[in-house]
């Protein structure tokens, strides 16, 4: 019989469909494998950190978080000052980088004369391309002496009633590390903010302009509410960088486990710089385990801040309704 039955044709179509489904399945399998690979790396890092820090965790428990000394000679380890230093320098950096960065972005988009807009934006992004060891050098050779000789005495003279600006002047200090971090996270916040501010729809700006709003009011009521989520994203990236930044901070923070105090002019320590200073000499056993536990703590702190940030963004997103198009 020459003529094929309608039924066989359907079967043929089904078979072809079957092939396509097979290729789909293969493709899905590959992508799942790739995802598992990423998950495995994260899990592996976490597992290595946890298992290697077990000796220190068992020996010191929560005292590891509060102990002042990181003392290989007496085999007593604690990273209280380093946790404090990490949080203080990062908070300082974010606190000052947000207004400067967002302000720069607003200037670049809304107030900058057009011909110099792109060159300026490029220069800002160039800041991000400078290797951190060079920031460290700049901080050590230029910033630290200047802060110690000029800025710190000036701050103490006029703002000395605040606990942050009391105490002796140190060039290599939490303050210097904070300032270096401000410079380092600035390009991140600026360029992300600039990108999202640029995406504010013209219709939103015009809505405000048509009501007789000034330029600042347009930014305040149309641009910033619209860009809020994106800017927060940039801030989270910046915070991650500040918490984990090692080289530049280690070069200027002083690496002294000073007692915890609000004074920013004190020398300090951060978790990342503890690792950078000690990993080379760490002898197997408790010492090594303590260095790894410092790493575990950086990991956990970064994780927690990221989770908090995600929740923040999620809640912001839910308050923004959709725009009809």
């Amino acid at each position, binding site marked *: 019989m020459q003529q094929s039955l309608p039924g066989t044709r359907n079967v043929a179509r089904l078979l072809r469909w079957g092939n396509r489904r097979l290729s789909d399945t293969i493709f899905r399998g590959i992508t799942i494998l790739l995802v598992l690979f990423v998950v495995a790396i994260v899990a592996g890092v976490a597992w290595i950190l946890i298992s290697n820090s077990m000796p220190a965790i068992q020996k010191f428990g929560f005292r590891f978080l509060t102990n002042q000394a990181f003392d290989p000679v007496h085999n007593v380890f604690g990273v209280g000052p380093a946790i404090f230093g990490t949080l203080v320098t990062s908070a300082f950096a974010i606190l000052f980088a947000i207004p400067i960065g967002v302000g720069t972005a607003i200037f670049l988009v809304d107030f900058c004369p057009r011909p110099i807009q792109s060159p300026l934006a490029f220069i800002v992004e160039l800041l991000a391309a400078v290797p951190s060891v060079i920031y460290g050098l700049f901080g050590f050779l230029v910033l630290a002496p200047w802060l110690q000789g000029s800025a710190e005495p000036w701050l103490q003279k006029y703002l000395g009633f605040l606990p942050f600006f009391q105490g002796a002047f140190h060039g290599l200090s939490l303050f210097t590390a904070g300032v270096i971090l401000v410079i380092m996270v600035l390009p991140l916040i600026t360029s992300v903010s600039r990108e999202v501010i640029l995406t504010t729809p013209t219709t939103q700006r015009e809505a405000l302009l048509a009501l007789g*709003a000034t330029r600042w009011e347009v930014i305040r009521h149309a641009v910033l509410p619209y860009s809020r989520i994106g800017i927060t994203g940039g801030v989270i990236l910046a915070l991650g960088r500040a918490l984990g930044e090692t080289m530049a901070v280690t070069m200027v923070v002083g690496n002294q486990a000073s007692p915890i105090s609000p004074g920013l002019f004190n020398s300090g320590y951060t978790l990342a710089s503890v690792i950078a200073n000690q990993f080379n000499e760490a002898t197997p056993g408790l010492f090594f385990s303590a260095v790894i536990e410092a790493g575990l703590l950086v990991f956990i702190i970064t994780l927690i801040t990221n989770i908090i940030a995600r929740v923040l963004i999620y809640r912001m997103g839910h308050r923004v309704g*959709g*725009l009809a198009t």
Partner: protein
Amino acid sequence: MAIEVRNLNVWYGRSQALHDITLTIESQGATAIIGPSGCGKSTFVRCLNRMHEEIAGGRVEGEVLVEGINIYERSIQPVYVRRHIGMVFQRPNPLPTRSIFENVAIGLRLNGLARGDALKEIVERSLTQAALWDEVKDRLNESAGQLSGGQQQRLCIARALAIEPKIILMDEPASALDPISTFQIEDLMRELRKTYPVVIVTHNMQQAARVAEKTVFFLQGRLIEQGETGKFFSRPQKKETEDYISGRFS
């Protein structure tokens, strides 16, 4: 008369968008501005509240007199002009992060015109004028983004009305809406034209015929013909107008 436009020439960078427009708009009633895409009709209304100069490269020459005052006078701030001339755009543009109430109140707050109970009263009045009050009175605190497209556009009209403008400009206010919402907006236009001079840009000739007492025809940046709407459509004077109305080009 509400607006008197004299020898208006407008540029986008080097290309001239409007050539020597001279036109009078009466202090009551609706004026429709029609013409094919790119004829400069939107550009024209954006010159009536100094919105055109917000675009990079936008430049305006000539005079626009509103109640006898040239709004392009050096001493006059564009912000001041826009505060007195309301504008409704092609796409509904409520502020999505703000509540329905705040969307109407924002113009009043920005310009320091009212607060407290007086503010609430004006918001209610404006929403009623925009035929939206009954639909939103129980959810004034919900986000404006929750409303449908037609409701959002009426919200934008309420927002423009709240600061009591002297003139209302509408730039194709119904072109992004469904037929029912379009009719609601047109009803609203007929209501508004009793109290305000209304200038409506539209590419829809039926709409012009339905809502406007006067119709102006633009073609390639030039004012071709203007006249009382009935006459304009039944007995056009110029060949270009007749061609356009009869659909010989679009």
